[in-house]
């Protein structure tokens, strides 16, 4: 119970190994014993082979790498747009009560709409190429950036603001030189959340409206009941999501470091 708490290294390796082994074992067993038709559940190594195969061999128009590239490009556009609008707006809301009261009700009502529910409008307004998915990503990524920027900036010690104001700083300089640096840790935490949500929303958007991208590839695989392709898509999505998160985590560390200087 509370006391035999710590595992020694041997025990840890044993239990972790057992965990992995039973996961893969159950998967293999259900394939080998034929519980599930092979078409619906390919063996782990088959999925891996398919994944590698897809890197070179085009499926539904592009190779896996090209699909990933087009997904990532859309993600980057939507995410950067969210950052470019969310951060200044959040700072402005923290600085000016008028702006805050103007934007908050509007923002709150939009926030409750799941980003994925924008898909029909996105397709209608901006088409299925780049514009549509970018709008959906934006809707997913925007709220956390705005909220975290605002929260980070509102907690800035009033003394700094007063001092800067007394020294003759205008609103713009207050925002860029006082509020922004002080809010950086909170902003970056927000960026991590928003990147995660944005990436997720992108996948959703691509499942429904897109003509390329990892999500699109998965839908095509689903339509032709090629489970190995669907699973390869899941692996790719997971890996990229992980990659984005690691990148932002690095940025977080850097920001903390930067603040301490």
């Amino acid at each position: 119970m509370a006391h035999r708490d710590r595992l020694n290294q041997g025990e840890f390796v044993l239990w972790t190994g057992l965990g992995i082994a039973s996961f893969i074992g159950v998967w293999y067993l259900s394939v080998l014993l034929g519980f599930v038709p092979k078409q619906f559940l390919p063996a782990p190594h088959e999925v891996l082979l398919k994944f590698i195969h897809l890197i070179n061999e085009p499926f539904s128009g592009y190779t896996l790498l090209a699909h990933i590239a087009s997904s990532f490009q859309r993600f980057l556009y939507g995410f950067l747009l969210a950052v470019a609008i969310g951060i200044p707006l959040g700072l402005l809301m923290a600085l000016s009560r008028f702006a805050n009261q103007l934007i908050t009700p509007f923002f709150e009502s939009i926030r409750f709409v799941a980003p994925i529910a924008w898909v029909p409008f996105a397709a209608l307004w901006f088409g299925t190429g780049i514009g549509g998915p970018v709008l959906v990503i934006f809707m997913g990524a925007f709220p956390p950036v705005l909220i975290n920027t605002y929260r980070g900036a509102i907690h800035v010690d009033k003394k700094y603001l007063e001092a800067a104001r007394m020294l003759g700083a205008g609103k713009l300089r207050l925002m860029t030189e006082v509020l922004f640096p002080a809010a950086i840790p909170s902003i970056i935490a927000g960026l991590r959340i928003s990147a995660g949500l944005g990436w997720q929303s992108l996948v959703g958007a691509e499942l429904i409206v897109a003509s390329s991208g990892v999500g699109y590839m998965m839908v095509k695989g689903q339509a032709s009941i090629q489970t190995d392709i669907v699973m390869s898509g899941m692996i790719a999505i997971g890996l990229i999501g992980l990659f984005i998160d690691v990148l932002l985590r690095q940025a977080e560390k850097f920001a903390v470091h930067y603040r301490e200087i």
Partner: protein
Amino acid sequence: MQGYGNGKLYQHVLQSMMLVTTGFLVSSSLGILLGILMGANKKIEAFVNPIFLTLRPIPPLAWIPLAIVWLGLGNSAKVMVIYVAAFVPAVINSFTGVRSIEMPQREAAAMLGISRFAYYREVLIPGALPLIFTGLRLSLQASWTTLVAAELVGATLGLGSILNQAAQDINPAMILVGMISVAISGWLMTQILAKAERYAMPWRA
């Protein structure tokens, strides 16, 4: 009153809410159980963690095509996707919740010779409750988003199917109706959860 896309608005709303409630309740209760067990027992943690860490980066929406391949376009595929969406936040937060209980509290309980059952009931669960509810809120939100997406991909009834139908008919007014219904229903369920939270943790209110 005429309906739209195989049903009237209340039928779509009820369908979606029913699916979310079913999937969410089953999944989050199992998730909380697993999270607490992982928090309380390092062996279970070591056993489950690698599987969990592998599956975790895959967003719930990415399970939709797999769910359709496995279970078709009916309700069971939706429940599977909701299940995946709600499970991860429930596990992570109840696990962190148990770990956030301070050592003296655990030791005091152990010293007083508490039984295993009472240890869970009196120490671990109440201590983890605030974070468990944080997890539940995230779970509910994820379930809702995922369900709408799954219904957009393919369904005959439900709010997502209204959106899908309206997009195909190029009917912006109906798209808006769908979006507003999604927002209001989501908000309503969050409110119910907040009520439950106040009820479960009277000492925090």
